[in-house]
């Protein structure tokens, strides 16, 4: 009898505790930040944080993106946490990072300790961890204030996702991957995006305005910070060091100067690393591609061996550059850490000099076919 009386009382207590409604979210009273940009502030020693936010307009009849207005707000602050606090204080709506698409680093902060600047994004559980992180060739504030009809934050994320078709070995940096990379203190690369000089249908499909997005290169970081920048072509080529690419272009030039353009349909990259004096590494690439275009219609395309040789030469140049910039370009630091964890932990501080002296054996095998085949 007592049990029968106790249970309804307990249920009533539970209802009272759970019906506080303190965690209820009204989407019409919420600002969703979809892009965050960081620049160095010109006025003081702090930073400029740009929040590119979507606010529901409250128009019930509108469909999809039409009932959302995008605008950017730039605030000066010493850290992202204080910038977010100021944003919350200045807005009558609640701020949410659950739909964040990207975090963009302005060119002025690339050489600084930017992970410390964006610690809020890396630590708060509400922030979407799949958001892409990239660098810009200009200011983030300018990037997010470009007048567009669409959403430039998700257009940037989609541009990067279209660039890299690999599955689980993507070269695109996300907030989640950045947190893990910083914890293991290995090098990494960030793509550099910018506004395209000429509009193109291939870039930024969501952006219906005048500007479109374009890959401008890649920034290479080692454990100490920014170590160098790759050009657009080098960044495209460096993608081949990751496994499972299903897009991208290879350019080949024959002895007469005719240029041939191949589209990658599938690429496989296998690396191995053997510690020793000196250390030895091998990289084996198998690339399937299709001939798309040639500069001279009468020129005969190179056979697979010549194409492999040409690509081999380009990749060797990139490997030579990586000895200066760091092993993040070739992915060999990750390979060494995974294959020889105990050894890597011991030599972590000397890794850069060890990598410079590592003998790398590169093997490239291209199999091409013509589009008309």
């Amino acid at each position, binding site marked *: 009898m007592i049990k029968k009386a106790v249970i309804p009382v307990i249920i009533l207590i539970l209802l009272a505790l759970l019906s506080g409604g303190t965690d209820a979210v009204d989407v019409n009273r919420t600002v969703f930040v979809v892009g965050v940009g960081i620049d160095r502030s010109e006025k003081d020693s702090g930073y400029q944080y740009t929040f590119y936010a979507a606010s529901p307009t409250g128009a019930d009849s509108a469909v999809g993106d039409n009932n959302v207005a995008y605008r950017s707000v730039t605030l000066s602050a010493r850290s992202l946490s204080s910038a977010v606090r100021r944003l919350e204080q200045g807005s009558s709506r609640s701020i949410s990072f659950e739909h964040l698409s990207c975090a963009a680093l302005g060119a002025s902060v690339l050489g600084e300790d930017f992970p410390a600047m964006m610690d809020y994004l890396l630590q708060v559980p509400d922030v979407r961890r799949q958001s892409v992180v990239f660098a810009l060739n200009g200011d983030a504030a300018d990037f997010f204030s470009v007048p567009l009809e669409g959403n430039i934050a998700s257009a940037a994320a989609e541009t990067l996702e279209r660039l890299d078709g690999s599955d*689980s070995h993507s070269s695109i940096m996300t907030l989640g991957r950045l947190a893990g990379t910083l914890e293991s203190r290995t090098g990494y690369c960030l793509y550099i995006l910018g506004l395209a000089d000429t509009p193109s249908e291939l870039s930024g499909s969501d952006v219906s305005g005048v500007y479109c997005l374009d890959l401008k290169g890649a920034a290479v970081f080692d454990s100490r910070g920014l170590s160098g920048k790759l050009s657009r072509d080098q960044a495209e080529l460096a993608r081949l060091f990751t496994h499972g690419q299903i897009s991208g272009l290879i350019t080949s030039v024959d002895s007469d100067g005719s240029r041939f353009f191949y589209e990658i349909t599938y690429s496989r990259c296998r690396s191995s690393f053997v510690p020793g004096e000196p250390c030895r590494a091998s990289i084996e690439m198998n690339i399937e591609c299709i001939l798309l275009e040639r500069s001279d219609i009468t020129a005969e395309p190179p056979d697979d061996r010549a194409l492999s040789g040409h690509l081999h030469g380009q990749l060797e140049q990139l490997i030579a550059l990586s000895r200066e910039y760091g092993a993040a370009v070739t992915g060999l630091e*990750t390979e060494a850490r995974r294959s020889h964890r105990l050894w890597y932990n011991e030599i972590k501080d000397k890794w850069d000099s060890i990598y410079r002296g590592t003998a790398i054996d590169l093997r490239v095998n291209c199999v091409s076919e013509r589009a008309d085949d």
Partner: protein
Amino acid sequence: MKPHRPLSGFQLFSLCVTASMFGLFTGHSGALSPAYFLLVILLFGLQCASLALLSCAYKRTGGEDYNSMLSRALSRPAARVFLVFPGLLFILRASLTLSGQTEAVSLYLLEDTSEFAVSLVFLVTAFCALLPGIRRISGTAALFTLLLPVALGVVVVSGLLGADWGELRLLYQPAPDEFVPALIPALLTASGAECALFFLSAKNTKDHSSRRLIIAPAVCAAIFLCMQLVTVGTIGLGGLSSEAYPFIEASRQISTGTGSLTERLDFPFITVMLTASIIQIAIYTLCSALALKTVFCARRTGPLAGTALAAEFALSLLIRYAGLGDALQTVCALGIAVYTAVLIPLLALLAALRHRKERPA
């Protein structure tokens, strides 16, 4: 009077699995490394051996409950003193689950609700689960054991398909200096099987059911293995050691091709985890009350269970607000280690030997 219906083998198995919660203990304070991963698997293996010994002793003594077995092995007052130890240990273990799960809820589900209210709801729900007794709890645990693999299966399959398999090679390369810091979190993760002693009583159990108890830690080890592979394959070893709730973070980041399939999976996953945690708190509280009932020669379990719940609430507040988490985790982990690895096998051995002596030639 209605006779007691014994627990089925599957119910007993479910109780043990839920007490372990598939190695899903989330209140650790870092130190997750390859050594942690190997230690948990090893500890689950040791639990299997420990339970096999206990089961063997149980059969030899003709299905006596733990109290009779203890009384045979030790003197009656000594048996009572012995039971104070698990009684307090289970209260501590339940309070660690309570504080860990309260933090998870506050971080991922109810950011603005006070942790005090969340804790209270946990305890009141656990009290409700306790009211109908062990048979109802075992029924709920069995239902949970049947349902959870479906939810986990989705995450594990999609996680393993999108995992970065290269990162998994790190798991079998533990550094020697990682074993000591990983021991406490590993002991807490692999705890739960010690409750089996209290389920193995003559009136609760059918003769054949002890075999299923033995495989319960092995099942937990298999599920723990899958979840660790998904976690490390998704967020890397760096992510595993930097996140407070690595599996929840991993389930939000699984790369499935469509990108966002599992992105908001934390909500159903945490809800399932909370249900399991409530049952786990109820099981630990019940075991604690059973132990203390024998110590104090009490006739009823209910008041003792209520007192244990209040003590758990107070301890969870100390863990959350007085910074005693690390100290209490260490005490609890070492207590569980002594209890599972030393006292249970010793009790089993003594009981078996005493029984052999008493058997007529």
